[in-house]
């Protein structure tokens, strides 16, 4: 589904020195997989995640998503892929504070270019009910708990029915118990709905939820 072919991300510090945030990374994520990307901070795992999530472009190498070379796509097409193909879950939840829970969940559909074969509001309502957040639909993000915010973020990631959920330290801002609940949720999505999930973390406990663990260290994929 996603393939990285000897991908590097480098930054020129000055004339002579180039810093490699990620060097010659080769990785394939298959459909319905639950993969954990683990590494200490500064290892390059975030860079890897940004590349997979199409937020950043590789300096060298090729990223292939569903047999499409990303380097051949323009900004609008990449934006569409971010909209339809990936669903993001962030450490800081990244909900928009001035929008209600429901509006936050609907936000990706505002930017959708493809015709949706479902009514967005109905689908959002259905999801909210399923996740026990229906009562909070008209509340603003700062009025609900961190665990609830992260659930809303997951719903926002799910509304476009993406192929891949990309979670960057999803438990980083949550207590252990809530963090575990969120991971259970992701696991359930993978097992019951066949959703492909990639979790980036520095915690071994969290990484364990993945069926495959990829180690990143000093800008390289170790295993």
């Amino acid at each position, binding site marked *: 589904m996603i393939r990285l072919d000897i991908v590097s991300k480098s930054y020129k510090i000055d004339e002579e020195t180039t810093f490699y945030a990620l060097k010659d990374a080769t990785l394939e994520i298959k459909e319905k997989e639950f993969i954990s990307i683990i590494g200490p901070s500064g290892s390059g795992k975030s860079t890897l995640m940004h590349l997979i999530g199409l937020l950043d472009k590789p300096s060298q190498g090729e990223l292939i998503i569903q047999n499409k070379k990303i380097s051949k796509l323009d900004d609008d097409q990449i*934006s569409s892929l971010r909209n339809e193909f990936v669903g993001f879950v962030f450490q800081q939840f*990244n909900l928009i504070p001035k929008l209600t829970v429901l509006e936050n969940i609907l936000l990706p559909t505002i*930017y959708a270019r493809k015709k949706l074969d479902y009514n967005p509001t109905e689908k959002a309502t259905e999801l909210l009910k399923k996740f026990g957040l229906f009562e909070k639909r008209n509340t603003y993000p700062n009025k609900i708990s961190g665990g609830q915010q992260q659930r809303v973020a997951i719903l926002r990631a799910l509304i476009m029915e993406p192929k891949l959920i990309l979670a960057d330290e999803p438990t980083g801002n949550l207590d252990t118990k809530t963090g575990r609940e969120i991971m259970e949720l992701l696991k359930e999505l993978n097992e019951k709905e066949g959703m492909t999930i990639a979790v980036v973390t520095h915690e071994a406990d969290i990484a364990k939820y993945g069926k495959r663990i990829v180690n990143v260290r000093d800008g390289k994929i170790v295993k």
Partner: protein
Amino acid sequence: MYYFIFIIRTAFEDFKRSKLQTFLTSLGIMIGVFAVIMLTALGLGLKKYISDQFDSLGTNTLFIAPGKILEGGSFGASSLLGNRFDVKDLNRLKRVKNITGIAPLSSKSGEAKGTEKSEFVSIFFTSEDFFDITGFSIENGRFFDNTDVEKRSKVLVAGPKIAEKLFGSEIEAIGKKVAIDNVNFLIIGVIKSKGGGGFGGPDYDSYFFGPYTTGYIYNPDKQFIRFAIKAEEKIPLATVKDQINKEMLRRYEEDDFSIVEPTEILSVVNSIFGIMNIVLVAIASISLLVGGIGIMNIMYVTVSDKTREIGIRRAIGARRKDILFQFLIEGIALSIIGGTFGLILAFIGVLIVQNFFPAYIDLPSVLLALGVSSAIGIIFGVLPARKAANLEPVEAIRYE
């Protein structure tokens, strides 16, 4: 459609959160629009006022003035320096065919003592035809007539304002004596108010009018500053003008006098005020420019405040143009809010001014104001919006 509503709503949600900031930002545009609309309204009012003044003169009226009044479409300086006319000219003009009325004009200013108080006044000394030519009508008493002119009667017809000032009321003034520079006059009538005064035009309501022959007391050389002439309606004005011209040329050089139709003066006045108005509006527009810069400034701040939000929006699929559009709408909304308040303020201002002056706002200036303010929103919003749109998603989302 939902997309547009959503984006516009987003902008207004932002304003609700920072009402004071929104107000201060749109203040510049508000003042600019207010100034432009107000000046346009005053200009329109002035134009209307002047046309109304000339309209009352009728279409078959001519003025003869010394010197060249109109030179190349503007008022000439020589009209102030030119020779004055005298009784000889009056008698010659009376012989011109197709003239139904002729009014020589001389004036005198002085201190008038009434029963109530003293006032500095002006008297127009003219003939009985003056009232017909200028379209005056009598409110109380009577106009002076030919007999008064022949007898050099010391009688005056008063404007309603001055009658009230000097004697308490218009009725009171009739039959009263008024001393002007130690000459006693009898007030025989008060004219119906002509309105006006204020900006530019003569305030006939504050003048006295007397027989031109009586005016010789102050004017021993028997000179006149102007003649007002009414021509027969059936004869083309140009023909009469030509006849008068021939008569005048027998005594004067081409450059020593002017024969003008009120419409000619009107068009010159209009073009002068038109230019003046354009200049004033152009100056007022500078405040619009400053307002626009204010909007640009605040939009840059907003973009940098919302960097992370831009990153989030990009991460979930917003294209560059979606971001551009969002911020552009915000800039335009700020600008239109300012423009609308400026317009409301100008409406109130014009309502107040209308007590003294016939200022009015017309539809084109309203549309122009709103058009210009949205244009300012676009022009000054586009740079910050482009900055927002061109942020790299990964940089934006990492921004703290």
